[in-house]
């Protein structure tokens, strides 16, 4: 925390200094020549622009490893290259041509970075020290569930109310006796609570009857609700073998859902991504900020990677990752993701909730038949521009000609029929 604050403080300070200098001299000066470079800022820019192809070490990735680049090339050359690599190659620079050939003629795109930022990156690369290899430790971190909280609160409130009632009752009795005593009447012995209640209920028969009826109906209603919830696992958020965070991947890094869950656009299951999909990124990214390093190491362990993950060479003793399934549909239901995602153009979040905000994935929707039907009743079918629906759309318009402008829902094309999902 301290470092972050000081870093941003430094940055602000530096910006102010630059501004003062700029204003003071009133001329544009090339600061690149003697600009020192800020490794902290460089790290940020590197992550945002370079990390998908380059490593700060000497290992090759899509492009060369950047360690020691300043020993190999001059700052000017590097700046020219980063801004437009193709121009450098076209100029016939022998080093550039060789480099281009060495990396299978993959073009390094021109980067929208300032010269200062390039120098910042170089400072970051120079200062880069690879972290020590993380020790794989499976932590027994239970997903904390605070189910007790709400019941506890209710209990406390009830208890407080009961205590208050008791105090009031006792105070009332005392006061009554006190009044009677004051009036000089013989204070009767304090009657037992039971007999008192009996007296009271004898006087308020209607109220008691009402309360009893309310209690019975309330109880039945509660029992019914509880029964209906059997087998519904909304908010189910089990502990997973790898503490994978959708928040980091889908939220912060903005990776598309279907990049990993590629099945969602193709077939009935969205699928848990195979580990080799993880390796597309994690062969380069093997470290995390807090627990990531240990968790990423679990992928390597599963794939039995003993050497450099960059090589993505998997060993013989692979161990499958046993994820805990969060979204379960009964076997007698046929659900097809591609129908909903591709044809229906339903956003993943509509059923799965704000996954990009979840560190631990939980089941957002009840996944009950009523929930499915509810959506099929209201959701309009995306008929526009889909040749499949042309004829059906015309026929439906004819059928519902009394209701101009009607939006055709899934129900209107038979989406509530049994054999659409059960076969």
């Amino acid at each position, binding site marked *: 925390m301290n470092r972050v604050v000081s870093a941003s403080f430094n940055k602000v300070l530096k910006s102010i200094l630059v501004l003062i200098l700029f204003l003071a001299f009133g001329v544009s000066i090339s600061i690149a020549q003697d600009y020192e470079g800020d490794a902290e800022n460089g790290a940020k820019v590197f992550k945002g622009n370079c990390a998908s192809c380059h490593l700060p070490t000497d290992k090759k990735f899509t492009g060369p490893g950047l360690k020691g680049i300043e020993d190999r090339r001059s700052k000017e050359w590097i700046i020219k290259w980063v801004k437009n690599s193709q121009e450098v190659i076209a100029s016939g620079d022998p080093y550039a041509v060789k480099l281009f050939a060495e990396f299978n003629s993959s073009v390094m795109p021109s980067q929208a970075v300032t010269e200062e930022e390039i120098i910042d990156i170089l400072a970051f690369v120079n200062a880069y020290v690879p972290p020590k290899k993380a020790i794989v430790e499976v932590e027994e971190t239970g997903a904390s569930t605070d189910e007790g909280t709400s019941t506890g609160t209710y209990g406390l409130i009830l208890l407080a109310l009961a205590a208050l009632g008791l105090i009031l009752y006792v105070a009332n009795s005392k006061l009554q006796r006190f009044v009677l005593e004051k009036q000089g009447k013989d204070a009767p012995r304090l009657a037992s609570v039971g007999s008192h209640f009996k007296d009271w209920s004898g006087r308020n028969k209607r109220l008691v009857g009402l309360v009893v009826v309310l209690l019975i109906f309330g109880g039945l209603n509660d029992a019914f609700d509880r029964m209906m919830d059997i087998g519904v696992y909304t908010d189910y958020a089990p502990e997973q073998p790898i503490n994978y965070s959708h928040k980091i991947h889908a939220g912060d890094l903005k990776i598309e859902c279907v990049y990993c869950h590629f099945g969602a656009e*193709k077939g009935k299951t969205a699928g848990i991504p195979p580990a080799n999909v993880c390796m597309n990124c994690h062969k380069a990214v093997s470290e995390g900020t807090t627990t990531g390093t240990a968790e990423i190491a679990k992928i390597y362990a599963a794939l039995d990677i003993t050497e450099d993950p960059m090589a993505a060479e998997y060993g013989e003793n692979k161990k499958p990752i046993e994820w805990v399934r969060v979204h379960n549909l009964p076997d007698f239901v046929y659900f097809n993701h591609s129908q909903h995602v591709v044809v229906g153009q339903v956003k993943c979040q509509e059923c799965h909730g704000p996954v990009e905000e979840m560190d631990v994935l939980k089941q957002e929707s009840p996944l009950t038949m009523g929930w499915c039907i509810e959506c099929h009743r209201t959701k309009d079918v995306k008929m526009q521009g889909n040749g499949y629906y042309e004829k059906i759309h015309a026929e439906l318009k004819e059928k519902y000609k009394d209701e101009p402008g009607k939006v055709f829902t899934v129900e209107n094309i038979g989406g509530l029929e049994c054999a659409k999902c059960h*076969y």
Partner: protein
Amino acid sequence: MSTTKTYWKGIEELDKDEQFVAASQKEFAQEIPVDEFLNDSKLSEEGTTRRDFLKFLGFSVTAASLAACETPVTKTIPYLVKPEEITPGIANYYASTFSDGNDYCSILVKTREGRPIHITGNKLSGVTKGGVSARVNSSVLSLYDSERLQGPLSSGAESSWDSVDGDILKKLAAIAAKGGSIRILSNSITSPSTKKVIAGFIEKYSEENEEGVAGDVQHITYDDISASGIINANVESFGVAGIPDYKFDKATAIVTIGADFMSNWLSSIQYNVDYASTRNPESGSMSSLIAFETTLSLTGSSADTRVAIKESEHGSVIVSLYNAVAKKIGGSTIAGGTDQYAESIELAAGRLVASKGTSLVIAGSNSKSVQVVVNGINELLGNYGTTLDIDANVTIKQGDDTKVEALLKEMASGKVNALITYGVNPVYTLPGASDAIAKVGLKISLADRNDETASICDYVCPDNHYLESWNDASPKKGEYSLCQPTISPLFKTRQAQDSLLAWSGNSSTYESFLMDNWKDSVLGTDASMDVWNDCLRDGVYSTTSGDIVDEDVEMQEGKTDGFSGDLSVAAAKIKASSTGGAVELVMYQKVGIGNGNQANNPWLQELPDPISKIVWDNYITMAPSDMTANGYEQKIGEATPADLVKLTVGGKSVELPVIVQPGQKAGTVGLALGYGRTNAGKAGNGVGANAFDFTSFIDGNITYSNLDVTVTGTGNKYEIASTQTHHTLMGRDMIKEASLEDFIKDNKAGNPDIMVTDYDGVKKNPYKINLWNDHDIEKGHRWGLSIDLSTCNGCSACVTSCHSENNVPVVGKDEVRRSRDMSWLRIDRYYSSDTKKDDFEIGFMDRAGLMEIPSENPQVAFQPLMCQHCNHAPCETVCPVAATTHSNEGLNQMAYNRCVGTRYCANNCPYKVRRFNWFNYNGNSDFATNPAQDSLARMVLNPDVVVRSRGVMEKCSLCVQRIQGGKLVAKKAGRPVEDGDMTTACAEACPTNAIQFGDLNNNATAVAKDASSDRGYVLIEELGVQPNIYYKTKVRNNA
């Protein structure tokens, strides 16, 4: 015609048997034994009191709610490294080849997540053209047979490949070094590459060593269902040792004498497809088919004219036919023949001569003499070159029985030092082989299981299943197909070719050997990786250059110019063997079990024989008149078992049940091959008796008949499971038929419009009278089928395809006997006769052999029947929980999870197509043969279809999973559904294209055209239930 005909499913129905009539009133033949259960004395002794009941109830409710509070933890395990071609949930299809020495078929294998689950025909094949048979599409279940060996055996004990290979190499080398004899006994190998592997093996062990000694190595082809008679006849007639390519698609008049070319004879899938293409009445002409046969076969059932003859008369009928044709054409006649059946023979000869040059005569006999005369007839008619191609190098059958007989003698005398069996099971199929093989020094079996032969072998080196293997096939000249693995070997088995390569000292794998061979010998100048990949994708490769692989060149040597068969010698031999005893036995193959190599496949065991409708059994078929004469029980039902009789052939006898078979020639009995396995596995062992025991070598060829047997009653009874009178339709007019002659005059012949009288006394079309509000069927899709009764020949490929697609359970013999079979699609077989039996008894019939009484030689019609998806479905209105409802696409839907099992729907179904799950077939140990119970066989289940549980109704869904899948593909592509985008499992399997699937609301589809055609009709239209399944009138060519 349908108005004058009586249709009946069995003798029970024809005779209006009381028990049958009573039973047919009920949808569920058996009452639920409620009284029996409640009156059980044990029940009251250990009885549950009301108090106990309430306790249990309370406990179970509590337990259930407690259990429900826990979230069940379901693990989901993704691929670690996903194979590129697999997307979970999406099927992959691979082209491959089925060739087991008995059937050849180019196929497509559907795999899900790497598991083969369904087989269909490959439409790109120039040979089988997309056809498939029940045996071929059921073979996917044989892959998951837990009786398969899981590794090599050495003297019956589990061993390793290294140790087995070491031993075998050592022993083979020792035998060769002493100049010993090594024999490879295999079935007909259609694979040119495998032949090359065997040639390599032979070469290796017949090489001379330093002392000048070489082993005597031979490869002998043995077909358990042999066509050696045809091959020998062709050697004599044309100098060609092979089977001709029969071109049924070019034939306009066909006469078969005992050859069941639609289901069993040679390359029957190919013939079935080709023959059906000539049977389109709309084209104005149809080929005609006359069948002379002994026991009623599928071919005889579909024949325009069928003549029942004795087994001993086959030869003489052919000689007579030769003479009749010769007289008409002007050739010289030969001595012999028969005086009987003159009218039919004259008719046949007339049709053949009228179609001279495009006719075809075939015979099922395995006698060389008979086949020489058949060749003579075809030569007279000038059919060679059009309907027969003698130079086509057809490889489906190559075995020469004289060599097999010689080998048996050689082995029996102890002269054979080593025997390798591949693809054959001689101990089971060849009488006397067991003792002979026992005398061989080194016995190696390449069988996939410890079968009858393997169990007496020293080493068993289990072959992969063909779906785990590389292979190729060349069924005929210029046509090649590939077989590729669709799954990694499930066990530690090894492909037979790899074993032979290893023993030949060849270090390459068969896969690379095969690729090299294709490069050198098949693709030739075409060879490139692209072409190879195309071949692998298509599964087939055709070449017009017709390069002949070297082995086949030998066949061509000694070829004669024209026909050189000696007809008079043949006729004399036929005459000498034409006398039969009182009872003649003929052995045949059944559509399901065939030669018995897949006897452990429960789908095939439970597939009703299309003719007898009997499952899980082997039985003696007998003519109705013989049954009556002997007093055997003809009306087999749940309460009336069949009579057990003793069949004695030579010295051997077996006890088997006897059933009545209309159409069987009096004085003959039939018995199916392929049963009575002892080492097949739990489904196949002990079912029926082994008929191969009664085959024998006559004139060097294996003969599948015996002309003098005795059948005697034992007085014992035997329970038989037959679906014959299940789900009967109570005499309603289901089959409509017409003759081609009438059809050409009036396309609506046999299919008059149905009119019913409404309450005002006005005659109306049933579609005009509605009790219910109409479903909105004209909008969107309306799925339906059309079924052409003209081309349906009952082959049953659709039935097994449906089982495979829809996870239909196997329930076993006992349940089928109680009318509880679960097939969603059944094939009703109707016998018909022009006049009622009563008329015959009064009148007098003197036409020998034909129509003595209706059941002696009836006409047959097949009718596949599945849920008719009625628009006014009677089942839907009676369901108290709305578990069966109508979709706006015309489907009658069944929601299993909603069904409470009242069975009202089944009671109310006029077509009797609903099936009830009486038991939990997937967990109850009484149904151990159900594939869903075996952890391995369960892999064959279709993951898109629910496995139903106890207490729910099920029925044909019109493959709704495929409809939804096809629609989704169209939606994703943003285009309308086109005809052929998807099809049902039955339509896809149909080799004759009798079943078509499509959208009835789209006028461009084949179904819509069929439905509105003059031949189109719906079953029991007068009920007004408005089915979406259409049938097309059966048209016979009686001209």
